[in-house]
Structure formats: C-alpha cells, structure tokens
C-alpha cells in the first residue's frame, strides 16, 4: 500500500512500522519518542506530543521542541477551557481534529 504525502510517496510499510513501534511503546514508554517522530515525519509536521489523563493524574511525552513550547505555555497562567474543542471532541468521537476544525466550528 502507498499513500501520497504532498509530492512524496510513503510506502505503506512506513505506517506499518509506526503501528509496530506504537505497540512496542505500549510496553516500553521510551519508544513513544520514536513514534512521535514518525508521526511528525509522516504528516510533514514540526513536532508532536502525547498526553494522558486518568484518575491517577496527568502524564505527557513530547519532542524537545514541544517541551519548550509547553514550558513557555505554562508560564502564561491558568487556562480557559476551550468549549469549542470540547464540543467537537464530543461530536467527532472517532477521529482527529485540527485546530482549523475547532476554530471553524
């Protein structure tokens, strides 16, 4: 399987490898960095991050650039909950949202 990404073509094996690495990361969290790197490369992005909230607290992992961004973000003070994002998450339970989707909703 091949997918077109802009002018490039990425072999389906690439995404198969991403899935494999994600499955490995489930057991060995250190591998999430590589998964984020892969997702970043596969979507022609700059960086990625992953955060999880459960009853025990909040955990996140991100690329170093995202880490700097989040550190700066924290210094800006308390957040306002984004009601549009919450609404879109409810409405589109089974997919990814872009900020464009959120802001245009």
């Amino acid at each position, binding site marked *: 399987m091949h997918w077109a990404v802009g002018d490039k073509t990425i072999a389906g094996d690439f995404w198969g490898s991403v899935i494999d690495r994600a*499955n490995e990361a*489930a057991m060995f969290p*250190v591998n999430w960095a590589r998964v984020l790197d892969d997702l970043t490369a596969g*979507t022609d992005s700059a960086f990625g991050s992953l955060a*999880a909230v459960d009853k025990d607290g909040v955990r996140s992992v991100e690329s170093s650039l995202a*880490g700097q961004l989040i550190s700066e973000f924290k210094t800006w*003070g308390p957040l306002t909950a*984004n009601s549009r994002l919450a609404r879109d998450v409810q409405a589109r339970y*089974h997919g990814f949202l*872009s900020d464009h989707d959120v802001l245009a909703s």
Partner: protein
Amino acid sequence: MRSSRKPFTWISFAHGASVGALGPWSAIRSTDLIVLNVARHYRRCPFEPEHVGRLNAIRPHLARACLISSRLSLRRVTEATDALGRVGIAAAAIDFEGLTLVENGCLNAFMPAMLASLRERLVVADPRADDLYCDAVRALQIARVKGAVGPFRSGPEASSLAECRLGMEIMH
C-alpha cells in the same frame, strides 16, 4: 503580556506566539483521556485531509497502545517505589514540577524530623536542604527543556518517571 480578559487556550497560545499551529487532535475516551497531536507552522496549516485521514487510519492502533501505556506507566512507578520500600529504602517518585506522585511507607519514618511534608511537593524540614532540593528539581526542569533528560534520553525506568509530568493544559 496577554490580556487577562481574553480566553487563554492552547490553540490561542500556539497561534498568538507564532510558534506554529496545532495539528490534529485525538480524543480517545474511555475512563481515560488521551490526546495525541502533531504541529506544524501556522502558515502551513490547515493540515491536508490526507494527513488527517492517514492518522485516522492508524488511530485504533495508537489508541490501544496509548491506553496500555497509560495504564502501565504509573503502575511501574508504584511498583518501583514499593520494591525499594520492601528492602527498607525510602523512596518517592516526583514529576518534573516536583510534585509527589507516589511514595513508599519508609518515608513516613523521616517525618517530621527530616521531611516537613509529602503532600503535593516533598518539603525537606531543613530550609537549606530544601533549597538544595528545589535547586535540583529546577535543574532537572532546565535539563529536560534542553533535552538532556526525559524519555528521549533516559532509560526505560527513568522514562516512566519522566512521563509523569505536567500536561493538563493540553487537555483543554
């Protein structure tokens, strides 16, 4: 300085700081909430539908792996501190903000003579020692921002701890 009246969200921050636009979000909801996002420069947004579609195609795999990882990581930290406690070594796991995540019972023996508190932040009773501890936590934060520590540089054990850190903001 941002206006105190303007709603402050992650997206507004990302856009306002000209750092780049936030990419696709994923809310994988059961009893847990997991958000995975990628970002690129604002001028190159919005994300192309094929990119969103590609992430959606592997979303079930990512969701499953994220959920397993989320459930296991804190358990590993707890087990590590418990194991140290069983051999009589006091131990606590903290996040990068210095907040106590888990501690073993041996630490209670140090209270209140050596430790003033275990709630939220670990507080050393001696002010000078506490200053040193706070300096160490700050050094860890700085090193993390520089990429010198954290899941990208550390081993799996350290990674489990490094993953337990701030991130509530990104959930909103």
